[in-house]
């Protein structure tokens, strides 16, 4: 496979594009995309290699270069053979290992050195791990064995394939149905543990594992550190930097992770009071909050600020952050986050019942989002469902019609337009799946966003060259649409909110102006170029270019539908007369 650098770039580009298509469609894609037989042969060979390569190079020469305690192959207590370090945190290290006796994969957890030197801590670790090993529940990670290796206690537990809830959330809200599914499983685990007197004390997304099949496994039952905080909190709330010295040891070595942990503490935990099962329900509320909004319920840059928030402040309403949160879910979260444990949920089963009820209603399509609640108040509930159903149907048809290839374009050649090592992507908050790079052209120029450390809106000649930034006052400009006359561009300033201000920018350059106070997550011009349409929450609106005369066109079912309609399918929906 001798190949020139230019040919390689071509082959690579077509290979990447082919990989993004279902394998059944690749052959026909290559027939269109490859200008010559050589290129096609090379790409086909690459695809074959890719299929065959399997685990080729997937295991680096050196793995886990972190300062772990045990190297691969090391055998613990003559029974567990270390395979690799899985994760390392304030509590200790977790390894994948093979149980040589029972021939099964296990996870071995060692508590951190400094903790294992404290005899009281050791005794407690041992006692609680044994208690937790009595827990047999599908949503609790099973503990197989508790032991010691040269004075370091360890726990052998079920090896799980998947990721933590923290990894699932990553700053973005989950879908309501997933929140309910996971929430019901978590509350089931809590209920089972509480019923035999085991309190978790450290419920947080990093301790909740979601397997590849979507099953929840709560980790580390009974393993939470509990250091008396009494008498120290006052200092912490005073906000002095030194006060962290008296806080749990984690905050000394890694302030970031400590803040992550204390953010889920209950008020009674912060005050250093005796704890009961209800502390877990508060922490669970904070987890639900994060699933619903992608953000911490209680956040701050110092321990003192976070503690103050937990003790004295109500978190921002989840609905304000994520309009798709059903009202009932917000109520559940609020009740779990009651600062006074007497008015909070009293039992895990109570939260679970509420979550289950909401799930049933969501599944039968009766859950209230903000939008449908508003509709019902105006008396049009049944109608709104019918209209929504029609809208969804139309959207599906419209998407099909517009996405269907009208003709098969023939790639006559590929050449490089830009070569400045800047990523041609743009961050789009609120989307779980990143959208492909929107790019528009007015003929002689291409317009798109470039991102290095900050996102810029740029233009470049279609014949190639340097990109030229178009100055805008927007923090993170995201491309909306080009006007009919190709003289104005709609841009959204997504910043860090879900619904963004919409701006009009004259082309090829000029002063940008914001369209009054409307907000949306996507925007486009109507085909006649006289109005703009924009998606906000589940709704699609239309308005004059100056922002006046804004009115709702219809309600979609997902934000993405709305976005697609607002972006591309305006024509079908707009002209079909389906105007609410």
């Amino acid at each position, binding site marked *: *496979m001798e*190949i*020139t*650098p230019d040919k*390689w*770039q071509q082959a*690579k580009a077509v*290979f*990447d594009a082919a*990989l993004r298509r279902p394998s059944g469609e690749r052959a026909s894609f290559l027939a269109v995309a490859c200008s010559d037989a050589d290129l096609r042969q090379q790409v086909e*060979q*690459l*695809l074959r*290699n*890719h299929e*065959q*390569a*399997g*685990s*080729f*190079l997937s295991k*680096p*020469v*050196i*793995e*886990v*270069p*972190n*300062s772990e305690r045990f*190297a*691969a192959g090391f055998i613990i207590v003559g029974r567990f053979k270390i395979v690799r370090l899985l994760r390392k945190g304030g509590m200790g290290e977790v390894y994948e290992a093979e149980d040589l006796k029972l021939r099964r994969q296990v996870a071995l957890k060692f508590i951190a050195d400094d903790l294992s030197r404290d005899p009281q801590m050791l005794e407690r670790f041992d006692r609680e791990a044994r208690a937790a090993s009595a827990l047999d529940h599908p949503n609790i990670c099973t503990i197989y064995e508790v032991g010691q290796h040269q004075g370091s206690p360890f726990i052998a537990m079920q090896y799980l394939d998947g990721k933590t809830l923290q990894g699932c959330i990553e700053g973005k809200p989950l879908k309501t149905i997933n929140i309910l599914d996971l929430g019901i499983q978590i509350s089931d685990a809590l209920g089972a543990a509480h019923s035999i007197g085991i309190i978790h004390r450290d419920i947080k997304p990093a301790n909740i594992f979601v397997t590849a099949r979507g099953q929840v496994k709560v980790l580390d039952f009974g393993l939470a550190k509990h250091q008396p905080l009494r008498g120290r909190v006052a200092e912490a709330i005073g906000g002095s930097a030194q006060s962290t010295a008296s806080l749990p040891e984690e905050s000394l*070595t890694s302030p970031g992770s400590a803040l992550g942990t204390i953010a889920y503490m209950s008020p009674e935990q912060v005050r250093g009071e005796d704890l009961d099962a209800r502390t877990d329900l508060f922490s669970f509320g904070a987890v639900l909050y994060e699933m619903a909004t992608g953000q911490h319920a209680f956040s701050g840059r110092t321990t003192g600020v976070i503690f103050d928030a937990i003790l004295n402040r109500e978190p921002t309403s989840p609905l304000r952050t994520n309009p798709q949160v059903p009202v009932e879910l917000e109520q559940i979260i609020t009740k779990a986050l009651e600062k006074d444990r007497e008015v909070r949920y009293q039992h895990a089963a109570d939260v679970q019942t509420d979550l289950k009820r909401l799930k049933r209603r969501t599944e039968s399509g009766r859950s209230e989002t903000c939008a449908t609640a508003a509709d019902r108040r105006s008396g049009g509930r049944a109608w709104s469902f019918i209209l929504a159903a029609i809208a969804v149907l139309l959207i599906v048809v419209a998407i099909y019609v517009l996405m269907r290839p009208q003709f098969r374009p023939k790639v006559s050649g590929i050449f490089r337009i830009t070569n400045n*090592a800047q*990523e041609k*992507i743009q961050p789009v908050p609120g989307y779980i799946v*990143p959208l492909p790079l929107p790019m528009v052209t007015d003929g002689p120029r291409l317009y798109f966003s470039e*991102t*290095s450390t900050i996102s810029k809106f740029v233009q470049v000649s279609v014949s190639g060259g340097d990109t030229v930034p178009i100055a805008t006052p927007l923090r993170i400009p995201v491309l909306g649409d080009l006007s009919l006359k190709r003289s104005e561009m709609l841009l959204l300033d997504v910043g860090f909110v879900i619904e963004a201000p919409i701006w009009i920018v004259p082309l090829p350059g000029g002063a940008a102006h914001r369209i009054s106070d409307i907000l949306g997550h996507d925007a486009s011009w109507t085909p006649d170029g006289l109005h703009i349409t924009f998606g906000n929450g589940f709704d699609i609106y239309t308005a004059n270019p100056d922002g006046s005369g804004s009115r709702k066109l219809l309600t979609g079912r997902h934000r993405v539908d709305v976005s697609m309609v607002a972006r591309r399918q305006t024509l079908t929906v707009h002209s079909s007369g389906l105007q609410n």
Partner: protein
Amino acid sequence: MGTVSHDVTSLLRKLADGHSDAAAELIPLIYSELRRLAAGHLRHERPDHTLQPTALVHEAYLRLVAQRNVAWQSRAHFFAVASTLMRRILVDYARRQLRAKRGGGRSNVSLEQAVLFSPDRPDQMLSLDECLGKLEKLDARQSRIVELRYFGGLTVEEAAEVLGVSPTTVRREWTSAKAYLYGALKQRHGDHS
């Protein structure tokens, strides 16, 4: 060891702060440590026992990163530097091993073994190095990504940090680089048999 560690730490900090000239000072430090370890291993090897590069590299890394509290970026930069050196050391070692064997065991590479590439096979290590050299001529960044990921053990995110590109780019380039190398290795094997 203590002072070396200290130097490494401060150099890494400089590197992470954007002083790219720190790499020039860092390379000899890391290289000498890696070589010292490799030599120690070789002296103590029984003749019938082949050195496992995996184990060697592992140990070298552990010693050099013994100090705690290395910021994540510094860690990534450390491995970025070390990945190139690691490749050099492994290839040198493989070459010497082959010379010692003088032809023995080279012809019996089955296709399956070529597919299940093993870093502990000197002939395969050399082939990989050569193919990586070819890839470097086609796309230097891709070959660098392979170095970082395979010889340095960097995660996609760490490699992205070091190269100043997005993880998506690293993932994409890594995929086609692997497909290229796999094909190139397979072809080399075909030439031999």
